[in-house]
């Protein structure tokens, strides 16, 4: 056997001894697993969030918490059992370095890779929304905090993996984690739900600035306490992070999962050049030209008509007396997919029915219903109108008679001179929303 005294160590030899823990082995695989899981979970209903920053935040956050955390727990747990599986326990027991550095040497790479896997997935989701964003702005605090949560979960999982010598520990821990998260997150009226890392927000509300960080302190404190209880020479040290976690938990429970309204969600952007004006929630402000374009036929036919609502509005709650409700663009994935209106004709028809405003009337007079349908046909016909006409034509004699009456009403409205129609429509819209048939002009 030879000696190599005097030989210059190669570049690789100079590398940090812990680099292999980061570069090879299970840690990068764990990160890839998190990335792949979140990518699949996000990609399958991509149209339901892509294009909306709030929707993107909601989906990435829910996927990170409900799928990422159990996966991180399982990954950490598996890594925690490594020394037992590899039979390196005796060897490591003779190390000069204490149990805590030894633990961190194998746990931190997994936690880091898991966090990186999530960050990449969340970053890709943000990029996927960025190119077709409809307004608003990204919320980077939530995905950053989620990455830390996943890292903490991986550390906690590693503690369990070290302590429990059971082959099924990792999947059982992941399942238990999912169950606990589901239990905490399911009922937002439950006081304990504030302890769930899953923030109960809507598109119009975001957590207050400190909420994600306190949530990280809560979960991270528990993980740190578990790590110190397992590895620290003075186990009482575990009380320090435990106290921090408890304080964070108390703060979360007492504040009840605090959120605040997003200022932009209460604003509208409007095109005032049309009649009625078209206003869109500022969160989807970039859709305004498309929506105005889709409604251009309708608004063009209403030029000079009186008694119309001042504007189509897009706010939370019911429209004011002089407003009509703009057809919903949310939830994304229906009317709007990746920043595009999918069916402008359908959208325009829905806007027309909103102007007529008799959807809430029970037992509407057939003549009034026929008149409303003729007006809708004139303003923006339904893409399904032809289909329903064909069905009626093949239906009972009553259906066919009603179809003929409806077609006559449409023809009468279309056959009017422009000034006559304008006057008739002004008289008609004066009765919009009125369920009493006596005042509605007939066709």
């Amino acid at each position, binding site marked *: 056997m030879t000696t190599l005294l005097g030989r210059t*160590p*190669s570049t690789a*030899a100079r590398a940090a001894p812990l680099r*292999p823990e980061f570069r090879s082995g299970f840690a990068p695989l764990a990160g890839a697993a998190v990335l792949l899981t979140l990518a699949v979970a996000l990609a399958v209903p991509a149209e339901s969030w892509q294009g909306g920053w709030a929707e993107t935040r909601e989906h990435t956050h829910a996927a990170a918490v409900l799928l990422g955390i159990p996966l991180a727990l399982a990954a950490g747990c598996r890594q925690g059992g490594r020394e037992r599986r590899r039979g390196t326990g005796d060897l490591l027991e003779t*190390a*000069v370095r204490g149990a805590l550095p030894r633990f961190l040497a194998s746990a931190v790479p997994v936690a880091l890779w898991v966090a990186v896997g999530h960050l990449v997935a969340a970053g890709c989701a943000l990029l996927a929304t960025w190119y077709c964003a409809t307004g608003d702005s990204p919320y980077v605090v939530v995905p950053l905090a989620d990455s830390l949560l996943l890292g903490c979960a991986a550390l906690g999982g590693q503690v369990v993996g070290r302590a429990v010598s059971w082959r099924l520990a990792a999947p059982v821990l992941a399942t238990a984690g999912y169950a606990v998260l589901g239990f905490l997150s399911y009922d937002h009226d439950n006081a304990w739900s504030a302890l769930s890392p899953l923030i109960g927000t809507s598109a119009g509300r975001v957590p207050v600035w400190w909420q994600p960080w306190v949530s990280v302190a809560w979960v991270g404190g528990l993980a740190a306490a578990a790590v110190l209880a397992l590895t620290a020479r003075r186990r009482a040290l575990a009380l320090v992070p435990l106290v921090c976690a408890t304080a964070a938990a108390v703060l979360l429970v007492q504040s009840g999962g605090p959120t605040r309204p997003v200022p932009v969600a209460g604003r509208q952007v409007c095109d005032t050049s049309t009649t009625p004006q078209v206003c869109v929630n500022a969160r989807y402000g970039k859709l305004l030209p498309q929506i105005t374009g889709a409604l251009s036929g309708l608004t063009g036919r209403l030029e000079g008509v009186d008694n119309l609502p001042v504007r189509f509005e897009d706010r939370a709650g019911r429209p004011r007396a002089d407003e009509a409700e703009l057809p919903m663009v949310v939830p994304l994935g229906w009317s709007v997919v990746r920043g595009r209106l999918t069916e402008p004709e359908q959208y325009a028809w829905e806007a027309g029915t909103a102007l007529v405003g008799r959807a809430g009337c029970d037992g509407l007079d057939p003549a009034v219903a026929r008149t409303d349908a003729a007006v809708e046909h004139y303003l923006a016909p339904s893409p399904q109108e032809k289909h329903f006409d064909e069905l009626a034509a093949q239906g009972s004699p009553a259906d066919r008679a009603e179809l003929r009456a409806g077609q006559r009403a449409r023809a009468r409205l279309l056959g009017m001179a422009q000034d006559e129609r304008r006057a008739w429509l002004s008289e008609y819209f004066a009765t919009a929303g009125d369920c009493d048939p006596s005042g509605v002009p007939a066709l």
Partner: protein
Amino acid sequence: MTTIQVAGLHVRHRRTVALDSLDLCFGRGVHGLLGPNGAGKTSLIRVLATVAAPTGGRVRMLGEDIADPRGRTEVRRRLGYLPQDFGYYPGFTVREFVAYMAWLKEVPAAQIPAAVERAVARVGLAERIDAKLRTLSGGMVRRVGIAQAVVNDPAVLLLDEPTAGLDPEQRVEFRELLRELGASATVLVSTHLVEDVAAACTEVTLIAGGRLAYRGTPEALTALGAASDGVGDHPIERGYTAALRAHREVAAR
């Protein structure tokens, strides 16, 4: 000079007594630890390696009491250990694994690269230093185990079955390495291969039933074999069986 002092060492595994009031001391040199299966060799090595705590008795190594956490840490700094079941990370290269062990032993960071190359060269794996451990044969993995044990130039080296899996040529080279290490350190080698002991050890300790059965030089054990009716093909094997029988006869009285 005595580096390891064992007094009244008692180790119990549940209801089984592994070591029973053992008194031993070792100095610089290569010490062969012989004994039948279940004699307590591995239990002794694990206690000396600070892996297992004894049930009773005292162990002083390198002037430190290993029952004291601070003393134990100081001992570990100057200790090399190859367990009987050597565990490793298959995805690591030889260099990475030995460097990782050096880091765990708190070898100064600047010295790790050279120490790793030196240790790997000592076990004859310089050509495979950047090979993944999963690609190595069983004998090569065993040599990696020896490399990690010597990476910190230990003052006490504990090797549990180090030649298991080595081919005859490697065993001859390993004996040479043992002699080299024994010149400056206390090397305790637990083995079943008495010819290794005859070739490389300066002293032999025979344990049976958790008790000391024989202590002497390999030459004395060989002489015992020549003068007695022990079983074996080699004089030292006959000496081993004769010493064992004598111990059992005394224990049976």
